């Protein structure tokens, strides 16, 4: 491993065992310590000028004990050995009993390193500044209607170390770098926003061969295109959702409802549905944390379990859930390497990594040709879901109408709403053009980088919102 835990976290095997023994002293069946040491840097440029920087350093630990399904946990900033021992004692005092579980000898798993960030920080910030000013220039020069450009680069680096009574002894180094360009177009009356975003779990090496000017232009294109678009007229219609970030539909409409956080509590519409048909026959979906290039990938999850490729839906049949250690006892479902947390300040739980529909057999052109009237959702925005009801929504950032099998005029203000259990059954065409989009997913255990992805898909009918028309 690239991280020497003893050096970084000051914990020997003897000390680790001592802390876990204290935590288990009142009959807990599982105890775990998660330690973290992270830095994060944000550089923000407005109108071509570097306006602000923030550098932050995070250091702390989370301890938890589970007994008969109850989890007691603590997050502490000052994670000295003394503090960890004291915290373990406080947690153990929540229970009454004698020690029944012994700490298993620690075993560091030999994991496959799929994520190996290199150049997180350079000698100076010249490369970073060049990216920011190039993307700003690309956006500004695209059109005179671009009145404001903000470019932002964030770089996060985290070293984590987790040890637990079940023999877990694992470290990992993570890095997430993301460039965002936001352009605002105005014609004096209306203003519209366009964005482009590129992120990876790598250092600055991810920008090798990257065209920042083109990247800025894309943000500007989206803003200008929507500035001149008509208002969407709402109603029910076929919707073609384009590849890449369009996969947010799978993320919101379905997979949040497959996370153990909802399923274990009986708060998901997908409870008890494994082996049953939940989507049309052409639908296959995975959550894959092992893909080397995708920014939702992790070598191990925050419980020290190596990440996996989890098949979620196979030919329309639900195959499994995303499950962490704790919920695995409760649900009688194997762990899936999906336990994640934003930082030690959150309790870890089952989350997504890179989630996408697998390619189908149609081509993009065939899907458009075969659609008489409908919406082409080219660039999706964010969305949300209530897993208990399966009802979801998401915004469409760039959209066009499809009329007589042709993409015609741009429309703004389209929003899609639906119910997860209906929409997956209504997918009637899937193209062969799988792409990925970069997202941050916010949920119970905080905000984490995730990939949403898909080929272009068509949903036979769904409710589209918009304020156009005179009906």
């Amino acid at each position, binding site marked *: 491993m690239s991280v020497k835990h003893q050096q970084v976290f000051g914990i020997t095997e003897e000390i680790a065992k001592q802390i876990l023994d204290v935590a288990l002293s009142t009959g807990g069946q599982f105890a775990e310590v998660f330690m973290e040491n992270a830095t994060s840097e944000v550089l923000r440029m407005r109108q071509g000028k570097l306006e602000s920087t923030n550098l932050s350093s995070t*250091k702390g630990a989370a301890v938890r004990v589970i007994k008969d399904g109850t*989890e007691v946990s603590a*997050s502490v900033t000052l994670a000295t050995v003394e503090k960890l021992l004291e915290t373990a004692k406080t947690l153990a005092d929540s229970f009454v009993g004698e020690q029944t579980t012994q700490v298993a000898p620690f075993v560091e798993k030999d994991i496959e390193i799929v994520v190996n960030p290199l150049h997180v920080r350079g000698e100076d910030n010249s490369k970073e500044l060049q990216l920011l000013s190039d993307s700003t220039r690309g956006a500004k020069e695209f059109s005179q209607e671009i009145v*404001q450009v903000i470019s932002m680069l964030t770089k996060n680096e985290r070293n984590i170390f987790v040890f637990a009574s079940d023999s877990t002894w694992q470290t990992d180094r993570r890095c997430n770098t993301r460039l965002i360009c936001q352009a605002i177009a105005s014609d004096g009356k209306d203003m519209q926003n366009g964005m482009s975003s590129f992120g990876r779990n790598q250092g600055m090496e991810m920008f090798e061969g990257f065209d920042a000017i083109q990247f800025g232009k894309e943000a500007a294109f989206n803003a200008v295109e929507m500035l001149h678009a008509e208002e969407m007229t709402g109603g029910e219609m076929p919707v073609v959702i384009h590849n890449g970030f369009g996969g947010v539909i799978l993320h919101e409409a379905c997979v949040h409802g497959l996370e153990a956080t909802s399923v274990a509590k009986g708060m998901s519409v997908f409870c008890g549905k494994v082996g049953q048909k939940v989507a049309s026959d052409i639908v296959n979906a995975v959550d894959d944390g092992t893909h080397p290039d995708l920014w939702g990938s992790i070598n191990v999850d925050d419980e020290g379990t190596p990440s996996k490729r989890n098949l979620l839906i196979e030919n329309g049949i639900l195959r499994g859930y995303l499950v962490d250690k704790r919920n695995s006892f409760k649900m009688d479902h194997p762990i899936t390497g999906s336990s994640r947390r934003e930082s030690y300040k959150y309790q870890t739980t089952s989350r997504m990594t890179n989630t996408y529909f697998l390619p189908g057999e149609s081509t993009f052109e065939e899907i458009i040709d075969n659609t008489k009237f409908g919406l082409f959702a080219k660039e999706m925005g964010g969305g949300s879901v209530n897993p208990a009801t399966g009802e979801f929504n998401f*915004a469409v950032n760039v959209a066009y109408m499809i009329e007589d099998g042709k993409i015609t005029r741009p429309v703004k203000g389209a929003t899609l709403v639906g119910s997860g259990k209906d929409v997956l059954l209504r997918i009637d065409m899937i193209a062969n053009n799988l792409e990925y989009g970069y997202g941050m997913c916010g949920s119970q255990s905080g905000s984490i980088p995730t990939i949403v992805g898909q080929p272009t898909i068509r949903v036979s009918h769904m409710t589209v919102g918009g304020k156009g028309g005179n009906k």
Partner: protein
Amino acid sequence: MTLDQIIKRGLELGLEAVEVYASTTESNSLKLDEGKLESYSMKELFSVSIRGLKNGKMASVTTESLDDEVVENLLQALVRNVDALDATEPEFMFEGGSVYQPVEELKSNYKDFTVAQKTELLKTLERRCLAVSDKIVKVGYCQYSETSRKVQLKNSKGIDLAQSYSYISTFVGPLAAQDGQTAVGISGDINTDFNAIEVDRMIEESTKDALAQLGAGSIETGKYPVVFKRDVASEILSAFSSVFLGDSALRRMTILTDKVGQKVFGENITICDDPFCPMALVKNSFDDEGVPCVTKNVVEKGVFNGFMHTLKSANALGAKPTGNGFKAGGGAISSQPTNLYLAQGDLNKDEIIATVQDGIYVTDVGGLHAGLNPISGDFNVQGTGFVIKNGKIDRPITLFVVSGNFYEMMNNVELIGNDIEKRFVGVACPTLKIKSLAISGK
């Protein structure tokens, strides 16, 4: 290093002024599931943000460790970063010596109660929700949290301020089910007194909401008069509160940029930012830059009076500081409201609904983080609610989209309720009746 040593070291490294902002947070939270404590989590968090000023430019760093080596490295990075910044509008650090209006400390008595008593409270909530109806099949969310926070702000120009507060929040979310359809109702309570947590109200509100949504159908696409439940109206106002901020004006990211002094909303609209608002939970005598907070009508009878500012945005736009510079995570300062509310009218919710012949009562919205454009004012959000027929709540409806434009909507508010939430946090709005909005459904 101590806070004073950090300031001293920053000045030695060539910064013209240095500010430290230290916060200590303790919070505990309990979750119950099926009569059993599912989790009990505790947090003890500490962080210090350091800002450094040089040549009118400001950079910041944040640390959770005060080890000499960590702080020294961060301070050196701060100096490098401040030098690397381009000069934009000048930054300032506030000088000490102002008079601050004192506020009463928000102090909870939660430490006088045991974990067992808190667990018992959650058990009562869950048990009594389930007893309301056979159709309440589960209480999916049953949670109690207590938080106490202490903040210290010091700078090299004489600011030395401190504030602390503590409170309890409780919420419950029963799940109702019938014929394969499910609905969730949520209700919460924020309090300082453990004995005053409004258990009866939470049970009644949450179960009533969940049960009322069972059997929800769809609605025909069209334009309808819309009544927003106060919570929904508050969420929308909150989502658009950025249009009143100095930062947005600096970035020209609000249509109000050049509209100070102009009539922008209907005459019935007054929006106030009041750090001392008696209806609000938290009161602030100073902001995170050390500037005294002041009460002001941001919009008065439809006229836009001015933005809520940080020191930087106030100076750049030639306005007076308003005490609205707060940290939004990280170390940097941005403009934010203190307690922002839309001034009440004199009708209650039922009186407002009684005025609608054929319209929609929106009780919940989803997707506000994505489905709105604070720059253009356009919004498209997922709605849940009821059809109103002849002045009465008719049938439940779901999965429709409410679309409009914030600026237009604020010119089309027909009636304003008298029901602002007690002990609100952040932004509050009473029930609103809008003349007409686009609803997309079937």
